[in-house]
């Protein structure tokens, strides 16, 4: 059948998408690769020169880059398990039969955090976690906790907001996975055992795995490029305590104007993201 379709038709259907992808995705990527191989500082454009892999070497031997990377993965390692645990709990509650109206309202309300603009979340955080006037300290009985100016507290605050914003996403994905479990299979399992854990582990979990892998990939990519919320909330501070990798790239590229070095950082980040996504798929993903 495929051979009977004229090539022109194939190109007509696929061409626009390929051209669109090339223009908005591949061309900038190639430009970033080109930039990363040059000394390319926006304020010194007269000095643009090919320097081979020097920018990559600078990045790979830069302690600050790896510290930022470490902070990013620490955030991922703390926030993501919390999001999955809380998201699974919410999904299981919403999967229970009955209370249709309440569950519908709950599902709708889950969308709200995700719909909130990242930068606005950061600004909200600035107000709510203000040491003197913030509602958080008021709710803690008038506590005098310095959230934004203390490195550990600032990091905890970022974790809180990330969990607040993205747990609903995980919950909705897992809820979708739970609805994929055939009713008769789940019902039969419940007749076999009273253990909810056994049902979850052997009946529901296989259906959740594709969603979980998607969550892992998306949340990993999101965390690696987490910028807006942190920028408006702490701007990477105090010190460098919340300077995640994307903030560092922005700082180098748009505040130091060293686009070559920032491009090298971004390319390395891209490679790490792709490798992680492949690992997730190979290790966790299984067809049901």
């Amino acid at each position, binding site marked *: 059948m495929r051979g009977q379709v004229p090539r022109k038709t194939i190109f007509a259907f696929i061409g626009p998408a390929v051209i669109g992808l090339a223009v908005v995705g591949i061309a900038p990527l190639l430009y970033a690769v080109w930039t990363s191989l040059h000394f390319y500082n*926006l*304020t*010194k*454009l007269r000095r643009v020169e090919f320097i081979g892999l020097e920018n990559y070497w600078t990045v790979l031997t830069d302690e*600050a880059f790896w510290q930022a990377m470490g902070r990013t993965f620490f955030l991922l390692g703390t926030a993501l398990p919390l999001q999955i645990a809380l998201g699974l709990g919410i999904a299981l509650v919403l999967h229970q039969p009955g209370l249709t109206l309440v569950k519908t309202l709950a599902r709708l309300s889950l969308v709200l955090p995700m719909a909130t603009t990242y930068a606005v979340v950061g600004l909200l955080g600035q107000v709510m976690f203000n*040491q*003197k006037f913030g509602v958080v300290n008021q709710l803690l009985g008038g506590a*005098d906790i*310095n959230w*934004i*100016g*203390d*490195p550990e507290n*600032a990091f905890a605050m970022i974790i809180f907001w990330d969990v607040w914003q993205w747990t609903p996403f995980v919950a909705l994905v897992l809820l979708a996975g739970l609805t994929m479990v055939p009713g008769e299979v789940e019902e039969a399992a419940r007749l076999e055992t009273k253990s909810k854990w056994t049902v979850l582990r052997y009946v529901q979990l296989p259906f959740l795995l594709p969603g979980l892998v998607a969550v892992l990939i998306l949340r990993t990519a999101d965390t690696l490029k987490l910028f807006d919320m942190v920028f408006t909330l*702490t*701007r*990477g*501070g*105090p*010190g*460098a305590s919340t300077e995640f990798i994307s903030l560092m790239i922005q*700082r180098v590229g*748009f*505040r*130091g*104007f*060293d686009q070559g070095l920032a491009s090298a950082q971004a390319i390395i980040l891209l490679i790490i993201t792709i490798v992680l996504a492949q690992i997730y798929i190979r290790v966790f993903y299984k067809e049901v």
Partner: protein
Amino acid sequence: MKNLRNLCYSAALAGAMATGAAADGHGWSLKDAAAPYAGTTVDVVFLLRPGYEAIEAMLPAFEEETGIKINIIKHPYENALGEQVRDFVSGGDLDIALIDLVWIGNFAENEWVLPLEEVQAKFPDAVDPDLDIDDFFPLVLNAFGGWNDTVYGLPFDNYSGLMFYNRCMLEEAGFDGPPETWQELKDVYGPALTKDGKYAFALQSKRNETQSADSFARVLWPFGGSFLDADFKSNLMSEESQAGLQFRQDLMQYMPDGIVAYDHAETVNAFAQGDVAMITEWSAFYSSVVSPDTSKIADCVEIAPEPKGPAGRKPALGGFSLAVASQADEDEQAAAYLFIQWATSKANAREYLERGGVPARQSVYTEDGLEDFKFVPALVESWQDGVPEFRPRFAEWPEITEIVQEWGTKMMLGEVTTEEGAQEIGTRMEEVLEDAGYYSGDKRLAQ
């Protein structure tokens, strides 16, 4: 009839003076000079600060007089450099460059702005004979608008660091005036004023330009330190620089917790709420702290020059000039020059001041009736004692300030000692300067 004629004459004169359009003895008028450029639109970046609101409020008079439209693009300070760099690199629309004093080397070396003399030679009919460039405070003109002995921009939004103090809190603690020296502030005022949830002092130290300019540099200079020595090597390990940086660490016990998260807004707010007795802030924030709408202590606010250190006062110096962009076409350049000249003119300085701006014209501060502007004597004194290279103004500053911001904050948090932090900043700063060609002799040692 005579009275009516006099009244009409006075009103007409006042109106003309207000717009700076008064034809002088040379027969020059803004209206005539602008006639060839009527209908031209001039694009300029403004900040969200009182000085810009002041000139914006005065703008209708200029536009009506000249037919030139000023298109203002507003940005917070932190975005202003990036937006302008991207615009100039890509040959964008900006016709005027708004230049912080630490950007002047960058803008001049990249030839994004035209030297003032070149503009005046190009458009001789646009030059107001009453421009009187010598009327600008020399320090301010040199630091904000000059680079390598060439004037590019005219000082527009002008700051000096001043000490804002809460007279009521000081009197309650038994002081009849502010501290004269930094040492006195720490040793005498600090313990007496830090109690019951109130603090003696707040030094805005957020990790952005505030950390470099308002916090780090502020303690270097009065103690005799500096970023660089005469050979452009780091001077941060010198005894004087270290004394200043260590002083900041010691002073932190009299500041609110989390001072490293305080930007201008938080600091001014803490002062205006009566939580902090003294702050060293830019003159531009005067209107905020004396307005009952934004300040609980409006009646208690007094202004003094910044305290002295062992090396003298050396107050913080900051501010912006406006310069004609080289990328603009000829009509836009002429129109831009007319606007800059008008906005910074002697004729408009008083109105600019009264609307919340801080002009850099010496003449306006000699006028009568400035009693309401308590900051004027301290400001004028500060502009005699300031150092143009308070922060180096060369093109490499954007890279160096990032290093200072990171390690300066780490020092304050106690993550590194002042020696370790200064060593790290010095090493990295020298790498940037070496890469730029200062040590090989490719670039003149100008800051």
